[in-house]
């Protein structure tokens, strides 16, 4: 608080006003006005500077000089964000994440978001089951987490055994999967066949009262069954990033070896694979002149070859390699674009790519703007350098 006198123009005017002989109010100008009492001036910044973080992490003001905040125990301890805890859930929603390779994919986020929504509306808790590794799920809406480390080979029987153990142990009200081939879609059907529980596959509307599952040209409508797989339209969402406890839940299970034996991946040349299916694409545009280097790089990465319309028009790549609005709409995990300017028609084709790496000499190319990793350099220099690096890596 500062002691600088504060003028109050309204009070000053009042004091200077007298009733004149005619009965009208008259203002006395100059001199004879009695001095005002000094009212201290308030400095609003002082109050602001004394703000302390509250329980939710926001800054709180205390107009009473810190007295109030000191008396509130939860407010007095600023610092770590407290996780949301669901102590007595009405039910458990089990979300089964397969995570081959231990990585969370887009569909896993969507699955957790849908599970969180359903749990919130049923006042339940989300139980996540991960079969390969223990990713941190505390900011993905997960209350409980069972993490296992199954071997990497494909063994549906072992997964089914794990799932049955979880069902026996935790008795979740609903089990959710993503409708992804070989992962969620496969496991959900195995579980439905093995347990005889009701199931809905490719659910595209999920409400606590009613679900809509996509059949062959029709919708199956009914109350949410115990087993559900979610259609991809429900999987684009992300859960709210609020901190939750993701409490580790132990599970004792010894899955025995199943009937199916995994003999390992077969090396296949993917450079000519259908573009729509590819999960790694190297793509060439007009900026590529060193075609042998481009093709050697694609072969070394075992990536599928794509190109812009410009190069397909000129016959440098076959027409079925064209990416874009009038070619193939691609959805790989990574798209490597060499010397592509990023015309709107081309960008339309790569809308659903998860990661884009662009190499272009033009800093202002649209492709550079779109890319997650943008490299302003000559493609003819980068391609052989990358190829040489891969070669060195392979030989140790």
């Amino acid at each position: 608080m500062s002691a600088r006198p504060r003028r109050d123009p309204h009070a000053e005017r009042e004091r200077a006003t007298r009733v004149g002989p005619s009965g009208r109010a008259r203002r006395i100008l100059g001199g004879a006005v009695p001095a005002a009492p000094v009212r201290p001036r308030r400095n609003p910044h002082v109050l602001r500077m004394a703000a302390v973080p509250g329980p939710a992490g926001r800054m709180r003001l205390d107009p009473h000089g810190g007295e109030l905040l000191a008396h509130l125990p939860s407010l007095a301890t600023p610092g770590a964000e407290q996780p949301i805890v669901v102590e007595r859930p009405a039910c458990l929603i089990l979300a089964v994440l397969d995570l081959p390779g231990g990585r969370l994919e887009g569909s896993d986020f969507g699955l957790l978001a849908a599970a969180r929504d359903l749990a919130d509306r049923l006042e339940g808790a989300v139980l996540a089951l991960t079969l390969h590794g223990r990713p941190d799920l505390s900011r993905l809406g997960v209350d409980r987490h069972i993490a296992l480390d199954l071997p990497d080979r494909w063994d549906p029987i072992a997964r089914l055994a794990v799932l049955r153990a979880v069902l026996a142990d935790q008795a979740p009200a609903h089990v959710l999967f993503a409708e992804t081939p070989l992962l969620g879609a496969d496991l959900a059907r195995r579980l439905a066949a093995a347990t005889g529980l009701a199931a809905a596959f490719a659910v595209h509307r999920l409400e606590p009262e009613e679900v809509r599952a996509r059949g062959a040209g029709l919708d199956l409508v009914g109350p949410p069954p115990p087993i559900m797989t979610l259609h991809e339209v429900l999987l684009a969402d992300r859960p709210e990033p609020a901190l939750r406890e993701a409490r580790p839940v132990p599970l004792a299970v010894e899955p025995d070896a199943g009937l199916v034996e995994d003999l390992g991946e077969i090396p296949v040349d993917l450079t000519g694979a259908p573009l729509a299916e590819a999960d790694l694409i190297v793509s060439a545009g007009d900026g590529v002149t060193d075609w042998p280097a481009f093709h050697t790089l694609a072969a070394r990465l075992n990536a599928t070859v794509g190109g812009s319309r410009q190069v397909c028009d000129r016959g440098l790549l076959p027409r079925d390699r064209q990416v874009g609005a009038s070619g193939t709409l691609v959805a790989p995990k990574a798209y490597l674009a060499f010397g592509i300017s990023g015309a709107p028609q081309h960008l339309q084709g790569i809308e659903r790519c998860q990661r884009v790496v662009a190499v272009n000499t033009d800093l202002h190319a649209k492709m550079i703007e779109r890319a997650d990793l943008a490299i302003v350099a000559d493609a003819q220099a980068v391609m052989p350098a990358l190829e040489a690096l891969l070669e060195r890596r392979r030989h140790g």
Partner: protein
Amino acid sequence: MAEIVTLLSAGCHPETGRLRPAAGDAAALALGLALRASGHRLIGLHAGPADDALRVYAGFAEFDLVRLNLSAQADALPVILPWLALRRPALVLAGPKAELGAGTGLLPYALAEAMGAACIPEVAGVEELAERVTLVQALPGGRRRRLAAPAPAVLVAAGRLAPPSGWAYARAQRARLETVPATALEPVAATAWRNEPARPLARPVRRIRGGAAARMAAATSFTAGEGQLLVQPAPDEAARAILAYLEGQGLLRS
């Protein structure tokens, strides 16, 4: 030589609604015909009310066709199971999903469960069939994996597999079908599920949570790429950045 049964369901063209060979079942038939070429016996099995649904498959090749006479509403599994138990085939082939009705893709799994056999989805080819069956499974992104399982096994063809080549109308008309009477079980009364016309799918959306502030931030911030930018790096440095990036995504295969 072993016996192979391929399950053939009534197909339906999604636009015209006309009868056709179901795409998934035609893919399974392609696997079966490839096995027949190496000397195994192939039987096409259909459970349904009409010969025509089965006849369209005969246009692909000449092979044995059996129809279990069943009403369109009845559940196929309880009639297929005893028939298979009598024949004891070494392999059962199926498509991933039916083109009429619920189309859940559950039947092969339920069949395998009842037979005590392995069910393997996304099969792209069968390499060897004896005591064990060695097969190739299609993985996402065009990759392939080799698996082995004891026979009998239920194999579900990969959806993207091509149908057998060469369909002939005359061959389909000439085909002789064997019809087996089947006693359907009464359908289980009134399940909670009802069929409705398919609604258009909603657009996949990412909802913005966390109130007005989060919505404002999402609307005003530019989030096209994650945005790591290297300007005129040495080629080697650029290559290392790309490599690290791909490695982080688990996309390096060699």
